[in-house]
């Protein structure tokens, strides 16, 4: 067994991991990236469509192009990349964090670091998670698996497709399947509004004439060996109206029913999770409940755009480097989700410096105003106009917002609300 002793280990070599590692390196910390796949890039590598990098690079890139820009820098740096290596276990031994990983090339490598950045990304929810009954034929895939099959393996998953859920990957795969000559019969969304970005609804469905059934539940997948069809029914006032159920014949079902941060490794290390995001609870420095362990990207909360992942990951890397230098956050204030807000990340802000808090709306809102307040005292309001759950929102709060908070008391909580 080989042992490495860098200052920091970054778990995951996707957008988040690469951005965090580069920041650590810039600050003079030795750093190892552990990546499961051969090569860097993570899930971006199968996202052949454009739309990445508008914020980060001010141009429109494909997933692999976006990843390449970071990967080149990482490979040119002193960051050590252990790819094809699966993280087995993370242990918190106080000042020392121990990560065991294994690969075919190197066997088991034990990494003893003083800081860890978690950047493992997320996984797709599956049929069982959303409890769609029926038979279990071949031809039921998550949208991400279908994307891999088409874009990287170069195979056709099926000819007649129904997409369940209107998440972004599902919408993009509806278009991709159309491009390879498959007929996409429908996209079925249980909510009364789409789960994906508006631009994807337009570019992936409307431009291809693919019907979108909002407020419809999939009540059954059927077929003996291969999928033969699905049954869907509308929801009326929250209840299924089975009298208006319909059958859609198809040979393939793609599921795009949400993403879950993949935190099994974190949980094993004792990291406390936030039930609202399924990601770690982090302080103003993106540090988890385990001192020295940081989190960023989709393992922290599911992002809508990779550009925000990179932004957040850079901060996580910089904070990890600062922590290694012995710096600690100033006095912090707890942040929580208020009216119409699903979650906030991080759950603490530093009163002495600028903070960025990401959050999502719980509903489709028109003419929404963002309010940051403590009890009845409004610190800041921002006109947001339209807000919807599929789009991430953020607010920057700095020392000027926290002026004369002395009387607020130590149990004060900052609330982010959409009103």
């Amino acid at each position: 067994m080989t042992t490495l002793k860098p200052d920091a280990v970054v778990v995951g070599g996707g957008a988040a991991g690469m951005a965090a590692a580069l920041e650590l390196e810039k600050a003079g910390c030795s750093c190892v990236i552990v990546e499961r796949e051969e090569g860097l890039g993570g899930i971006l590598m199968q996202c052949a469509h454009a739309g990445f990098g508008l914020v980060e690079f001010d141009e429109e890139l494909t997933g692999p192009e976006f990843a390449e820009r970071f990967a080149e820098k990482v490979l040119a740096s002193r960051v050590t990349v252990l790819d094809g290596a699966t993280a087995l276990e993370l242990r918190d031994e106080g000042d020392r964090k121990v990560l065991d990983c294994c690969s075919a090339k190197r066997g088991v490598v034990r990494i003893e670091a003083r800081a860890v950045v978690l950047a493992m990304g997320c996984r797709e929810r599956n049929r069982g998670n959303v409890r769609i009954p029926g038979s279990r034929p071949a031809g039921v895939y998550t949208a991400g698996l279908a994307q891999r099959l088409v874009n990287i393996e170069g195979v056709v998953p099926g000819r007649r497709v129904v997409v369940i859920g209107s998440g972004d990957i599902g919408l993009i795969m509806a278009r991709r399947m159309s491009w390879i000559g498959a007929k996409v019969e429908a996209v079925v969304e249980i909510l009364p509004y789409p789960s994906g970005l508006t631009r994807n609804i337009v570019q992936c469905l409307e431009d291809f004439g693919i019907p979108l059934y909002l407020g419809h539940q999939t009540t059954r997948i059927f077929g003996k060996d291969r999928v033969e069809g699905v049954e869907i029914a509308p929801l009326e006032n929250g209840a299924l109206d089975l009298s208006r159920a319909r059958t859609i014949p198809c040979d393939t079902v793609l599921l795009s029913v949400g993403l879950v941060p993949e935190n099994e490794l974190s949980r094993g290390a004792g990291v406390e999770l936030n039930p609202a995001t399924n990601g770690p609870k982090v302080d103003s420095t993106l540090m988890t409940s385990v001192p020295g362990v940081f989190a960023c990207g989709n393992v922290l909360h599911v992002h809508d755009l990779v550009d925000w992942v990179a932004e957040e990951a850079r901060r996580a890397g910089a904070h990890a480097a600062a922590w290694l230098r012995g710096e600690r956050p100033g006095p912090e204030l707890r942040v929580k989700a208020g009216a119409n807000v699903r979650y906030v990340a991080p759950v603490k802000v530093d009163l002495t410096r600028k903070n960025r808090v990401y959050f999502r709306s719980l509903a489709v809102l028109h003419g929404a105003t963002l309010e940051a307040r403590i009890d009845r005292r409004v610190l800041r309001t921002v006109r947001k106009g339209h807000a919807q759950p599929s789009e991430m929102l953020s607010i920057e709060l700095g020392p000027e917002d926290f002026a004369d908070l002395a009387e607020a008391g130590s149990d004060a909580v900052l609330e982010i609300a959409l009103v």
Partner: protein
Amino acid sequence: MSAVRDVVVIGAGVSGACIARRLSAYELDVALVDKEPDVSFGTSKANSGIVHGGFHHPGTKLKTRLEIQGNLMFDRLKRELDFPFERCGIVVAALHDEEMRAIEQLHRQGVENGAVGIEMCSRERILELEPALGPEVVGGLHSPGGGIVEPYRFVFAVVESAMKNGVALETGFKAVKAENLGETWRVSAEDGRAIEARWVVNAAGLYADEVSALFGAEEFSIKPRKGEYYLLDRAAKAKPRKVVFPVPSAISKGMLVIPTVEGTVLVGPTADDIEDKTDFETTRERLERILVSARSLVPTVSESDVIASFSGLRPSAGDDFYIDLSEKAPRLVQVAGIQSPGLTASPAIGEYVKDLLKKGGLRLVEKASYDPFLEPKPRVRETDAFGIDRLVADDPAYGNIICRCERVSEAEIVNAIRAGHDTLDGIKYFTRAQMGRCQGGFCTYRIVKIIMRETGKGWDEVTKRGGASRLVEGEL
């Protein structure tokens, strides 16, 4: 293939497998055939995976005698065959005082049957034994001899052991014709293959009635009774230590909360008589009922922990097993109606059928070379970091983790394929790859590529479970 075999066993589920393995200890030429592309693909793959405690049925039944006997055989089988089995114990929870009367009856029955260590429990005692039970529990029954087993792994191991001792396995062999040639039977398959054997064992599960008809033997009918299940994540909040039963009803043992040997949790099954032996659909209403019922026993059962649902069909032929020499067809043994507790009883069924064959005139001479042991197979998930490092030194493929959720390496998948499990489902049951929380979302394409490399199949030739269950249409 030799000209005439001594015995052909039709059906490679748990009964057929145990019978074939038992016969492999003798100087006999035995074939085991199954219509599916792999063994254990029928009732044996979708059930509760329980080694029962011997108190649910009266001792007058054949199934009870075989259950008690079979239960006691599992420790030795585990030593020989290295499959996941744990004697974790069973509790039956009573939720009100009237149910305690049924508990008393089960207890008396268990004692009469000779169930080992069975005890009546006060509320305090049962909550101490099983803290996951809800506050409504008023008492219950504890059967420390009950346990849990991974049913397909058990069948795979039994078949592997039988093959190691000379049994010939033919999969994809759907028996469609049987001719009595006087001293022998000639059994033909749909695809033209044929096997000639002196004796035939009908262990065809759901299709035992149809196979019996091929031989002009007893007329009976196998009624499928569907059981639906939910599988919960290994990180589920609801994780009992013991198998939790409700007080049974007239037609079934009720819906259980089962901590599986592999660390997940299973809730179910329902019990519904159906007509179609190929109907494995789950239904919304019944799945919801499972959750309600399971929560009445273990309140922490949560729908947010569900990772899969599935159903299995019990092959019911009345309320007892039907295992006997056929009175109508010569040299045929019927092994039918093996529903619960069939898995528990299966090792004893092997013994019982061996005795029936002897009674019928089959000469049994012990084989000096019989080796009941299988070499344990390394599993990365059950190995510590140092052990994995040693495995990788011998075979780098142990370091390539294919299934992240259940931590299954490429080497284990290759072993499965080389042992004949070359469908996605076969690999799933053999290795657990695709059986975890992502249900194959990340690893399916990797497994398909390993199957292609090992078997030379193309993308469109790899299937989920044989037949027309192809995964993709082909290349772009």
